């Protein structure tokens, strides 16, 4: 006989599993009359169950977040698609096309990100990032406050095109040796260490490929609402810059420097072989093409294949490099796309929205509330998963909201939520950049929380200001 011993940790694990998988199962087998929605079809009910599963799994993370995405796709295929398990197939409601569900893996959004990954990989491999940082930091001199501004500016700039995590890792590897020579007890050390993740998270707002929530937002901005790469940057970059400057000022007030000199030491020279030149040229050309789609007519998604094609053809990115791309991020986004597709195609989204009584609700309350919700959620879970969960619902909601056309249509609310998802940065667990910066040992969680909440709230204010200007 093995004595049954369960410690508290295991107990909480079991509890998490019950919530994540038990509740959705219950949700699927309950009679339809149990839900406060009239004429709920079997397919719709199953989509609700899948949505709950996604939500619980992304929040509590009993399995990796990209695994949840694949689970969504798998469950949609066997439960609600036109190739679903025969014994559970329902004639009630519209079955989803299995081709479209699988198509989530190759959605234009995914291609856009793949292009971004190739650019970032090539830039890192040919040390374009480190060398640019070296050149761009030079004019900022040795005064600590200006060096900090320089570091933040460059971090934000890089994270517009590279993953926020890779950018943070690169900048912290420059910063850590400097921190070590600053005197113990100089508050500026904390300020500097905090400046990097703040800048990386803020910089992600700048372009559609800056961070996955942005690309997911594009998915829900179609037809008349669609935004080009250049249009996004036209408001994203100023927004990021202003928020960056405010964060810099805040950091200097809260963590004043005692030292009066910081010496940066980044070694290396620009690579000057043929492959390196190809990387520089392709990088530049891709960005130019992204910004000038109104001239040549190739959309951002198609342009994104250019770096992929060039770098593979020239062996700048080889087979081994390809294996090391962040496929988990792409699959994480795919699951979100499939979830959105399920909500939309099953008719559930529309069905839900029509059963919500909007009369008497202020449009501003709805928008403000959803942006705040996005920020709070993103503080505790992945920013991408937050966008995956909220955006399909928000996009459906936007169509039905009375009075939305006066404030810029559904674009406003979709952007408000997507951008707010980038502002979840109050805790070490909020984003990978935060975790890395916290790992330097220079920052206490309370200090990070104070700055994160402050910048987050100011950020939401700025987002609304920006959206009001562009509406």
């Amino acid at each position: 006989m093995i004595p049954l011993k369960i410690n508290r940790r295991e107990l909480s694990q079991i509890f998490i599993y019950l919530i994540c998988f038990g509740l959705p199962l219950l949700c699927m087998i309950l009679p339809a009359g149990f839900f406060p929605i009239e004429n709920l079809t079997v397919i719709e009910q199953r989509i609700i169950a899948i949505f709950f599963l996604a939500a619980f799994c992304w929040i509590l993370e009993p399995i990796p977040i990209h695994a949840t995405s694949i689970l969504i796709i798998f469950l949609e295929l066997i439960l609600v698609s036109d190739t679903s398990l025969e014994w559970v197939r329902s004639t009630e409601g519209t079955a989803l096309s299995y081709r479209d569900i699988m198509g989530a893996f190759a959605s234009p959004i995914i291609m856009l990100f793949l292009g971004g990954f190739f650019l970032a990989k090539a830039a890192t491999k040919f040390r374009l990032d480190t060398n640019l940082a070296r050149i761009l930091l030079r004019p900022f001199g040795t005064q600590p406050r200006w060096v900090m501004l320089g570091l933040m500016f460059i971090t934000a700039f890089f994270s517009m095109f590279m993953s926020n995590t890779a950018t943070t890792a690169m900048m912290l590897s420059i910063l850590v040796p400097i921190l070590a020579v600053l005197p113990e007890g100089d508050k500026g050390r904390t300020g500097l260490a905090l400046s990097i993740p703040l800048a990386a998270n803020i910089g992600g707002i700048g372009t559609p490929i800056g961070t996955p929530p942005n690309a997911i937002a594009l998915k829900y901005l179609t037809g008349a609402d669609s935004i080009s790469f250049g249009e996004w940057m036209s408001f994203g970059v100023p927004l990021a810059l202003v928020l960056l400057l405010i964060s810099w000022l805040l950091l200097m007030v809260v963590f004043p420097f005692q030292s009066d000199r910081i010496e940066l030491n980044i070694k290396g020279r620009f690579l000057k072989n043929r492959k390196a030149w190809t990387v520089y040229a392709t990088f530049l050309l891709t960005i130019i093409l992204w910004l000038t789609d109104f001239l040549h007519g190739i959309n951002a998604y198609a342009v994104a294949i250019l770096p992929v094609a060039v770098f593979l053809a020239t062996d700048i990115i080889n087979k081994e490099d390809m294996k090391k791309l962040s496929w988990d991020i792409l699959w994480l986004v795919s699951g979100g796309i499939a979830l959105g597709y399920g909500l939309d195609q099953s008719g559930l989204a529309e069905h839900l929205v029509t059963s919500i009584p909007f009369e008497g609700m202020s449009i501003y309350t709805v928008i403000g509330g959803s942006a705040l919700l996005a920020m709070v959620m993103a503080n505790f879970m992945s920013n991408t998963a937050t966008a995956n969960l909220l955006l399909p619902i928000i996009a459906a909601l936007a169509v039905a909201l009375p009075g939305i056309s006066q404030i810029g249509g559904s674009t406003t609310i979709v952007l408000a939520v997507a951008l707010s998802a980038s502002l979840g940065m109050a805790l070490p667990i909020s984003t990978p950049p935060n975790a890395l910066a916290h790992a330097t040992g220079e920052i206490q969680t309370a200090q990070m929380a104070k700055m994160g909440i402050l910048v987050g709230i100011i950020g939401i204010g700025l987002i609304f200001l920006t959206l009001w200007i562009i509406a």
Partner: protein
Amino acid sequence: MEKLYIVCIEDQREVLNSIVEDLSFFEEALVIEECESASEAEDIIDDIDAKGDFLAVVISDHVMPGKNGVEFLTELHDDPRFKRSKKILLTGLATHADTIKAINQAAIDRYIEKPWQTEMLVQYVKELLTAFVLQQGIPYKPLLKYLDKLTLFALLKQTG
């Protein structure tokens, strides 16, 4: 969850105790095994591998009865199961020839001379653990406290 191991091999009990004491910083997250001979260590690492756990770092003395440290580390280096495991030679008595062998044949990652300083030993284990965790593709986030930051950032820079 697979466990990560640090295996220490040293024939003198009191020296072994002081190594393990120095490594107590890692105790919460890793398993630290104490062995008094190479053959005892071989048993333990076979066990670790059979359970699917990871041998992250080996710290071995050189002069021991039976198989010596360099011989043991050379065999470890040639064993495909422990290709990525990191090796530290901790010794005061290795000859010039032993040292050359340790580098060329056992491909040791660090050489520490006795008597050693605690901070140095901890720092080296941190660096090697970081490299092992990232090369092995083990999630690094729960281990952040035990990793060397510069090594981590440098490796993450390349992979994102």
